[in-house]
């Protein structure tokens, strides 16, 4: 398979980036998208050129590190799939593929396709946890009954891998799907009730401070999320926030 790749190249955060076109031959349909990028980088190395920087870690769809907007879609054209799990058989010989980094003021480019997603870490640190004394007498998790429906919903929310595709897909670069998933996974469980008020207040405040945009309910985040996190989480966050600010 022969491909034309148009890739965003940017030396560092402050440098002005540009799209650079590369021709790549010998791409196999069974390769993952990241393996295709590896081959490109080998080629560039062999030519003495700077390889393309991109984030990756587990390469099995669970870490959320890989982050590329492929032909305008975060993680590419295949639904419920991270870039590392996207295979080149989804493309055709002779295709031109445009590859860009997540674009958001809150996710500054570090280099090429690699962006700084520490804004998500700070949102999580603002309240995405429960305080539990683990000094030897930890309560068995099964000792607290949880309704099956709530347990399932909390689990689905917790499958968010924090990749940032929701922000990348949203026309407003809003982080509400991520933040709401992290709030929901605790809001649905009895263990999360103790800190429910401060959690939603602090996480929403941090989300706003990071400079993400406002949610306008287009639903693009849910469509592009590789884990299928639902918009319902955002509605739940809105309820939780109103409850926290009015009732307390």
């Amino acid at each position, binding site marked *: 398979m022969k491909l034309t790749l*148009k890739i*965003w190249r940017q030396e560092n955060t402050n440098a002005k*980036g540009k*799209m650079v076109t590369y021709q790549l031959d010998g791409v196999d349909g069974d390769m993952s998208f990241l393996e295709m990028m590896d081959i490109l980088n080998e080629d560039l190395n062999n030519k003495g050129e700077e390889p393309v920087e991109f984030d990756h870690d587990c390469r099995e769809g669970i870490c959320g590190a890989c982050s590329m*907007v492929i*032909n*305008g*879609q975060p993680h590419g*054209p295949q639904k419920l799939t991270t870039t590392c799990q996207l295979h080149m058989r989804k493309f055709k010989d002779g295709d031109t593929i*445009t590859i*860009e980094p997540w*674009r*958001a*003021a*809150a996710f500054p480019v570090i280099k090429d396709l690699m962006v700084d997603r520490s804004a998500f870490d700070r949102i999580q640190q603002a309240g995405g946890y429960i305080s539990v004394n683990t000094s030897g007498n930890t309560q068995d998790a099964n000792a607290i009954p949880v309704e099956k429906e709530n347990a399932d919903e909390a689990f689905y929310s917790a499958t968010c891998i924090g990749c940032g595709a929701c922000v990348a*897909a949203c*026309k*407003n*670069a*809003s982080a*509400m799907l991520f933040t709401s998933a992290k709030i929901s996974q605790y809001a649905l469980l009895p263990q999360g009730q103790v800190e429910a008020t401060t959690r939603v*207040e602090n996480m*929403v*405040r941090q*989300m*706003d401070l990071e*400079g*993400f*945009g*406002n*949610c*306008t*309910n*287009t*639903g*693009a985040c849910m*469509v*592009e999320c590789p884990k299928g996190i*639902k*918009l*319902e989480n*955002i*509605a*739940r*966050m*809105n*309820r939780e*926030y*109103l409850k926290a*600010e*009015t009732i307390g």
Partner: protein
Amino acid sequence: MSALVKSSLARKWVMALSGLFLVVFLTQHFVINITSVIAPDTFNEWSHFMGYNPLVQYALQPVLIAGIIIHFVMGIVLEIQNNKARPIKYKSSPGNANASWVSRNMIITGLVVLAFMGLHMYDFWVHEMAYKYVEVNPEDPTRYYEETVEKFAPIWRVVLYVIAFVLLAMHLWHGFNSSFQSMGAKSVNKGEGLKKFTKVWSILIPAGFIFIALFHHLNHTN
């Protein structure tokens, strides 16, 4: 509470609440207007009531104007903030692959509706204010039907009405249902009933306004 006022979620609620208020207003506006087709005398009677009732004129009308201003100003503020959140745009676009054109372009449909409202205010509200407070004419409960039919005589005005209401329908198609999601309603996602209601309403009411404009234009021509 101070955090609530400043938060991005509060901005969503302001948009949703002001939008829902305008939806209610649009419904009552339609109910009154449709009487001009089926019962002109009733239309005259209700229009006169709306034009001279002190509660409507001095309480509801200012609230309505405030609701319109809040909705549009907040919409423009949000658009500016959202543009700042992505200073460098993507080179490639997914088109409608992950979100509908209507949901992505509420600012365009909204601004067209705003422009139409300028014309609408000039046509009816400014004229009404001049009639009552500048020319200081006596009350005439029989004038409204004839005035309305006369307004729809020029084809250019009818064409503008049709364009504006088609765009309003598009705006409502996303906005009406979306307002419940912003308010945190569970049923938006769990039940389809509310969603279906908002979609049907978004088409029927603007289509009704278009019908009224066409009816009076054709009626006048014939």
